[in-house]
């Protein structure tokens, strides 16, 4: 036989990477996400002030832009006293230290909430998509209801009644986000379950559970992973909103949403810095996660 009827190593893998390149935006988004991840790890340890110690003057404005180069030089060369780069807030907490320490909180809430939502949604979606019976139908109807829940209000109820703690926020968000994954997973499992590979494996004598877990599950995770990126972004926003109505994380934990909502009214008094800097940080982060989700989606589709 000749090699004419099969090609080894198609070029398919090359353009996939090339497609990722697509927008310059992708790089920016990727860098921001990396930076945020990095800050989540080292943020608190590199912040010039303890982000929870309130002993500075309240409402110190950030230094003038023209003074930054000099101050920066002084800071880097180890001379001079630490500077409140982004000013201080109503309590006299250092805004800069809090902005760079916040990713640890925000990301752990968002990532954990998303992770638990996946933990609930993925198996449920797999069950519902692969084994279609009245039990899984009921599961879907329950998931419908969960999905029609007013997410924000429900999160608030859970947090307000169960107590304002990170654990409760994570739990609330996880429960409320899981139906999205049930749905996505189920749809994808139904497509994947109809593929020949399933039939082939069944013909080989694999058990249904083995097929579901070994073939269908891994091949169905794509859309959920794409969605994860978006969900993580939204979870960060939602946490911020919860803080605004007083059901967010516990102060003085450095968290962007809390900073924005506590500082928001300061805008009216001309004290913009306590909320604008975390505002920029949150926008940039959510934007980058969304952009990354978009890139992933395009990569997944092609």
């Amino acid at each position: 036989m000749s090699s004419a009827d099969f090609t080894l190593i198609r070029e398919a893998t090359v353009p996939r990477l090339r497609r990722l390149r697509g927008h310059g935006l992708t790089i920016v988004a990727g860098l921001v996400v990396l930076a945020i991840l990095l800050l989540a790890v080292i943020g608190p340890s590199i912040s010039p002030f303890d982000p929870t110690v309130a002993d500075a003057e309240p409402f110190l404005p950030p230094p003038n832009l023209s003074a930054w180069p000099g101050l920066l030089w002084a800071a880097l060369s180890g001379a001079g006293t630490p500077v409140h780069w982004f000013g201080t807030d109503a309590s006299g907490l250092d805004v800069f230290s809090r902005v760079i320490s916040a990713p640890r909180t925000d990301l752990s809430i968002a990532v954990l909430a998303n992770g638990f939502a996946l933990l609930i949604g993925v198996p449920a979606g797999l069950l519902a998509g692969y084994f279609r019976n009245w039990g899984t139908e009921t599961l879907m109807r329950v998931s419908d209801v969960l999905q029609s829940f007013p997410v924000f209000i429900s999160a608030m109820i859970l947090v307000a009644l169960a107590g304002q703690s990170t654990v409760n926020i994570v739990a609330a968000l996880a429960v409320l986000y899981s139906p999205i994954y049930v749905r996505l997973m189920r749809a994808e499992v139904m497509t994947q379950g109809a593929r020949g590979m399933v039939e082939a494996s069944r013909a080989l004598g694999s058990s249904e559970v083995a097929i579901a877990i070994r073939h269908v599950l891994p091949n169905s995770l794509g859309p959920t992973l794409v969605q994860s990126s978006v969900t993580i972004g939204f979870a960060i926003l939602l946490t911020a909103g919860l803080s605004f109505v007083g059901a967010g994380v516990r102060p003085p934990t450095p968290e962007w949403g809390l900073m924005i909502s506590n500082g928001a009214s300061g805008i009216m008094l001309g004290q913009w810095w306590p909320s604008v800097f975390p505002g920029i940080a949150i926008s940039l982060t959510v934007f980058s996660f969304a952009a990354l989700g978009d890139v992933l989606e395009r990569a997944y589709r092609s």
Partner: protein
Amino acid sequence: RAADLLLLAEDVPSGLDPDGPSIALPTTQEGMVQMLEPLIDYEPKGPNDSGFVLPDFSKPRGRLLEAWDYDPKALTWTLHLRKGVKSCAGNEFTADDLIYTYGRALSTSGAVPNAWFLLNMGSIKGFTNDVFSTDKAVADAAKKLGDGIKKIDDYTVVVQQTEVNPLYFVNMAVTISQGVFDAKEMQKHATAADPWSHDYANNVNLPSFGAYCLERWVKDSQISYRANPNYYRGKAFYDHVVVKKVPEAANRLVTLRTGQAQMVQGLNAHQYDSLKDAKGVKVEGVLGNEGLFVVMNFKTKPFDNIKLRQAIAYAIPYERIVQVGYSGQAKQWEGVIPSSYPGFVKQAQPYSTDLAKAKALLAEAGFPDGKGLDAYKDAFKLSYVSEKEATLGPVVNAISTALRALNIPVTLDPIPQTQYGDRQIVKKDLGFAVNDQEKPIGVDAGYAMKLFFVSKEAGGINNMMNYANPELDALWVKAKIEGDPAARNKELADMQNILMRDVAWLPVVEFKTQFGLSDKVNGLTWVTDNSPRFYDLKN
């Protein structure tokens, strides 16, 4: 439009029934006091330096009462009612209205027996705990107005006390629960299921003899009043007053600054401070009866340790809290009752910020350098009301920063008002909390003692920190029925000294009750319920 007033508030009344479910909300009380007319109040003392008119607590004056007589031997009060007072509905005020009001209080038919409570506190005959008896017959019998309250004629009522108790008279001034209903109007809306018209008062109107009548009320949004044209003290200057709910403090602030509202409330000190330099507006404030204190629960280890409590008292950064938390509009609180109240006793040696002393006391308490406190991490969760983050945030941050500097493992624990209330009042399990909302509404040191400090066994009511000191209780037993004012004052002063020594509360600051006003609005008066009286406002 000169006679219009727009007040921007954090909320509007949720109900207007003094025995209704929302009576504990200040914004609800604010609505009631405009329409309910009290029996007495206090003569004004003249404005303070910011323009606020304060009362002279030594000069009670009649409102619905023209005069009153007290017979100490018979323990009876003869109330002479004012003639020619007309309600919003045009009904004339008579003894029947007062009898109705007391009868309603005794019926304890509302969600909360608030009116009953103040009369019970005043030892009025017939106002006993029997009304709550689980034996229905006993309860029903107790709910009938007996000879404790007697109508003599249309303008005279006699009230019988069971023991010497000055609190009856003090409490008469508490408009929100002792104000008098327009009985005719109320009875019009009574139903078989609701003979005391709670539904009507909660949801529709509060008919009374006050300065204002309800015009329109949309719960959760706004309430507007018209001046009562029949008001016996003369029609109010502001004919039309609207209170609008604006949840965002910042919006209230900027709207006042643009001149589109005449009055705002519920800002934090920093925000009020920012109004001071603005054109066309002013801020009026009074160190009235609001104070902030730290509660350390005697049932929660290690707060049962007096040395530790004292160490904490010396560690509190009083000055920073005055400056950062209240923009200077506060002062250190050196007693346990408001310093403006008669009978206030200043601490002989006030606690001050003294870290050396704090450290020494900490060591004495058995925790040198904070060692060993880590075991009590949970106890050091500093609770406060999460809705008050804007005001309390800087305060609790200052406290926790200061205490952590002494290696005391403080964390912050904001909880919703409701939950806070539940744990403070019912469960009494708040270990470590910051509180800025408890004030004795009755202007009397004894009222404060009974309400906050006396143990349950000795007839105390609230005692959120589970403080029980037989010495204090013994003094109260005497003071409660002390007929001689001087002797009573002495006993109450002793009690205050004991409380401060024991750090039963850790008083931190007294802060100003403030309002933002258009500079055209004058005459703001202060009443112990901290609600402004629109009637007193003038150009």
